[in-house]
């Protein structure tokens, strides 16, 4: 029971701490009601992702991962957050409650169940983990991905859906920085910009929907339905 203490270094612990908080922020996104709080939580999650990348990069002396941490910080925590805040007028942010298909306590329970599923899905993989950090980053990232997917499905507002998708990507990257740490930087650079472009395009589209339809409650748009 106590032997893991000797095998896990302080770096692994710090990484695990970032992982635990990352998971908590994913849960927080399920529980948040206000759009602005939700956005801030996303920024926090991105910072956690960056810090995990930084810790891993420092541990393995990989400049490459530290660069990833920097890119994440600049693109996700700063640029995208700023962009999304600019996208729509303050009216949506001022509104207190996001309409949601399921109430929050049951959503949290579903998120919980998803996490437990992830635990079982990822446990056969973890035996191939060459590094202790994979044991945190892979399952927690996967859980972040699934919880994000759940959030996108339940929320009916445009901006929370966008943030949900970005948090899914955060989850995938959180797993990625440990399992695919040597992926060429060019690919990760491009991926970061891909995320930025997606956020930009979604922001533009949200704006257009707001101009054209007068609301950003995309969940209420049901003119295209299977008969």
């Amino acid at each position: 029971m106590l032997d893991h203490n000797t095998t896990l270094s302080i770096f692994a612990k710090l990484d695990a701490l970032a992982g635990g908080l990352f998971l908590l922020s994913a849960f927080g996104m399920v529980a948040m009601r206000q759009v602005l709080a939700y956005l801030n939580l996303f920024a926090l999650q991105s910072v956690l992702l960056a810090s995990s990348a930084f810790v891993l990069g420092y541990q393995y002396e990989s400049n490459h991962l530290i660069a990833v941490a920097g890119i994440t910080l600049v693109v996700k925590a700063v640029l995208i957050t700023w962009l999304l805040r600019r996208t729509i007028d303050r009216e949506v942010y001022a509104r207190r409650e996001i309409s949601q298909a399921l109430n929050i306590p049951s959503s949290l329970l579903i998120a919980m169940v998803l996490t437990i599923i992830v635990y079982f899905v990822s446990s056969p993989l973890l035996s191939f983990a060459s590094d202790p950090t994979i044991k945190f980053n892979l399952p927690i990232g996967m859980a972040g991905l699934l919880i994000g997917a759940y959030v996108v499905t339940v929320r009916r507002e445009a901006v929370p859906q966008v943030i949900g998708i970005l948090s899914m990507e955060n989850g995938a990257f959180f797993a990625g920085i440990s399992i695919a740490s040597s992926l060429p930087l060019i690919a990760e650079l491009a991926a970061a910009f891909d995320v930025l472009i997606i956020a930009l395009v979604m922001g533009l589209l949200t704006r257009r929907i707001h101009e054209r339809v007068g609301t950003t409650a995309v969940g209420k748009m049901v003119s295209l339905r299977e008969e």
Partner: protein
Amino acid sequence: MVDRIVFNIIQVLVVMTFAPLIKGVLNKLKEIIQSKRGPSIFQPYRDLWKLFHKDEVVSEQSSWIFRVTPYIVFVTPIFVTLLIPVLTGYPLFFAFMGDMLGGGFILALGGFFATLAAVDTANPYGPVGASRTRMVGFLAEPVFMIVFFTVSFIAGSTIPYIVQKQWVTPLANFFDPSHILLMLAFLMLIIAESGRIPVDNPSGHFELAMIDESKGLEYSGRAAALMKWGGAMKFFVLLCIFLNVLVTPWGLAQTEALSDVLLAIPLILVKMFGFILVLVVIESSLAKLRLFRITEFLGAAFITSMAAMITRLLEM
């Protein structure tokens, strides 16, 4: 042997003496943050003194429960004090009697009687407060359970003295994600259990919105004093568990020298002062939740403790 009994008694005395002070400091700090002068930090002592010298009025309709409850509320925190590390890092004479779960049950017994007594007098506000307290308690219970299970899962024990050592040997354990998340969950529990904002407003005077306070409305004189004192001690004991077992397991007496034990008294007070500062910031920056939002608050605590459990599982 005799030493340990003496230390145990010192421990109880410390809790009895300083519990009102902590309340007083908390109230004062809160008022200062709200740019008011506030009552003296010794005001709770004066209140107790005043109440002890007043006549007691007991409703003729009430049963023995109403009369016994103040004593139970007063005694249960003292019992718990015997079990937990307040001043020393090693188990004292009575510590064999129970673990953290036992302590939790003893505290719950006091709460149970307070609830019964509130219903007993048929004062309309009592039952309202009692049912709300039960609702919060009912939701907080599973979280308590998960927190305790996670703690015992990590440390391999529910004895607070063993758990406390777990976090600092080696120091890296302190940064264990499950530990940090547990602290967070436990903090939320303390807020819910001791009726602080955002769950309940302890300084509110509007009976309809009260949760915790309305239970004691019918008491007067000595019984009221015991209830208040008992409540303060319960808060103190909860903070002791939180601080000495989870957050800052340092600064406790490690040897059996009397000087060490006495030195631990100011240290625990300093720790509590630090925590109270945090609590005051939380209380001043949040608004009280609507009654039905409390579910979400405790749901968040539940999720946090589950997240702690999961990260712990992943580590293995």
